[in-house]
């Protein structure tokens, strides 16, 4: 207890700095992946993509990021075992943050495809297993999380397959794809608004004092979807057939209609990413802050302070502004095969899956989910060429990242423990 009282401020500052560093890293690297399909499909310019990412990542983090933060904060490590020595939990959380941050830095330098989520979960499990004991890990919950890493790309793939199939049969595969696109695209917009609003209202908004019952939530989500649909109708209605872009079936024109939809789904994706990934940075911070502010009370039922979510959101935007621009530009210029009709199907499927996971409190990898969604469109014969080696790389990154994050965090845990006690 003495340690917490005497070093409380130091712990808080360390947590803040490490958390900001992590959030910066997410903004710098991860966001580009989340926005990749939007920029690649040329529906957005780089500038627009950055603006959208900044606004919606922040909104997602702030409005719907609470649930996953709670999981990272207390879902993985069993704090009850640490009532007697709360400082261990502080060391552990700091070590996990530092470990994940360092591992991501190493991986970035070498171009390895690792996931922020996997790094932090690996780090948390690592310190708890070795620093405290096997029982300190909530294996049931961790099992869930790991299962969700398998399920989320599959689900996203299934959704994007279905979405693209519906686009084929409703629009592309008809005699008048242009007018059918104008007719049906607003309905897809409804879907975007509805899903995002539903999950956000259902799970996310408790911490800003909005609590609704299920019925109200549905009504609000329907309204949100309806508003989106009307806005979509307006913008789609302004698109006139451009005969010069005409080949046999006006596909160039059809894609212009889908561009409008792509912009909306890009917002949804940024929102979803913010809601899920910001927790990786601020979950441990929240844990440290809660222990320090309660003077060593591990199991305190304190609510998540606003400013921590703000910290996470700000860190992401900072990373985006300083380094992410360049990454997004690179991504945008190297993905040229993606058209808005594909990009939309993949992004909407991924965004829905991620938001769903955020609502359930499961930390998943946004990028892996997006990869699954892109493959789903490919299965519907929608892509010219996909590189399946990426799938292998993802499995490799799993196998490497979990132990690497764990080992590093064990190392940092004992270092911190040595320094402070």
């Amino acid at each position, binding site marked *: 207890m003495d340690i917490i009282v005497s070093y409380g401020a130091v712990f808080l500052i360390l947590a803040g700095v490490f958390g900001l560093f992590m959030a910066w890293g997410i903004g710098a690297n991860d966001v*580009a992946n989340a926005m*990749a399909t939007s920029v690649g499909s040329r529906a957005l310019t780089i500038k627009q993509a950055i603006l959208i990412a900044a606004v919606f990542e922040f909104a997602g983090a702030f409005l719907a990021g609470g649930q996953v933060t709670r999981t990272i904060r207390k879902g993985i490590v069993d704090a009850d075992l640490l009532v007697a020595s709360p400082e261990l939990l502080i060391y552990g959380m700091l070590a996990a943050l530092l470990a994940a941050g360092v591992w991501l830095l190493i991986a970035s330098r070498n171009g390895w495809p690792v996931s922020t989520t996997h790094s932090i979960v690996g780090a948390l499990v690592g310190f708890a297993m070795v620093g405290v004991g096997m029982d300190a890990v909530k294996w049931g919950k961790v099992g869930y999380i790991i299962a969700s890493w398998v399920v989320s790309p599959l689900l996203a793939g299934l959704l994007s397959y279905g979405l693209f199939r519906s686009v084929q049969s409703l629009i592309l*595969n008809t005699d008048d794809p242009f007018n059918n696109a104008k007719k049906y695209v607003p309905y897809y917009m409804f879907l975007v608004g509805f899903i995002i609003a539903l999950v956000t209202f259902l799970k996310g908004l408790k911490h800003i004092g909005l609590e609704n019952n299920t019925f109200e939530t549905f009504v609000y989500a329907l309204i949100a979807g309806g508003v989106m649909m009307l806005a979509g109708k307006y913008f789609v209605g302004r698109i006139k057939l451009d005969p010069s872009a005409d080949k046999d079936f006006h596909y160039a024109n059809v894609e212009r209609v889908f561009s409008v939809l792509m912009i909306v789904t890009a917002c949804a994706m940024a929102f979803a990413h913010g809601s899920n990934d910001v927790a990786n940075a601020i979950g441990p911070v929240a844990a440290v802050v809660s222990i320090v502010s309660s003077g060593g009370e591990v199991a305190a039922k304190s609510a998540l302070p606003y400013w921590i979510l703000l910290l996470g959101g700000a860190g992401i935007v900072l990373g985006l502004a300083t380094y992410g621009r360049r990454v997004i530009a690179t*991504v945008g210029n190297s993905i040229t095969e993606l058209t808005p009709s594909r990009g939309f199907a993949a992004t909407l499927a991924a965004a829905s899956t991620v938001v769903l996971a955020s609502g359930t409190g499961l930390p998943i990898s946004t990028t892996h989910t997006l990869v699954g969604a892109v493959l789903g469109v490919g299965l519907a014969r929608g892509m010219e060429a996909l590189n399946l080696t990426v799938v292998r790389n993802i499995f490799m990154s799993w196998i490497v990242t979990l132990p690497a994050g764990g080992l590093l965090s064990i190392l940092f845990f004992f270092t911190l423990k040595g320094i402070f006690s």
Partner: protein
Amino acid sequence: MAAGGYMTGIFGSSPVKPMQQHMARVLACVSELIPLFEAVFREDWDSVAASQQKISTLEKEADVLKKELRMQLPKGLFMPVSRQDLLEVLTMQDKIANRAKDIAGVIVGRHMVFPAIIHDNYKKYVRRCVDACEQANRAINELDELVGTGFSGQEIKLVVEMIQKLDAIESDTDSWQADIRLQLFAVEKELPPVDVMFLYEIIEWTGDVADRAQRVGSRLQLMLAR
């Protein structure tokens, strides 16, 4: 992650554009047969040699494109069409150019003279064979639109119609070939036997150009039927 991360890694380089470029090169190569034969009938051997050079260069360029495309189609690539089918279409495209090169080569090497009686029909015959290649090129040019629609109904119908037209053109060339053979048969006794043998061979090879163009079409059709 390295700039771009692995989201960019998942998009392999598309084979569609290179396929179309290759076919365009093949068509340019085959089209040169028209001036070549005109020069042969004028017995203007300088022009013939120039045409033959052009054909040979274009054929080599097509070959380079073919090899590049093969290199960028690793086994791990996931495409809306089977890799096997795609490679077969490519091989068949390349064989059209090879045949054009063979024809030009033998004509230049032997300074072949064609009996005047078949000149008119032969021009039409060659023209029709080039038509077949043009039609195959048109069908291959729809590949991007096919992917654009996710290989669905309307676009497939369009391509299938193109392939049917290609078949019709090829069968035209068959009847021209039969006519020319008949004309040649009528005069063959007056010509040196070895020359006649080669004339028949060139007639056959010219027909091969259309035949292989048609096979590009049928391979394409196989590719669509999945």
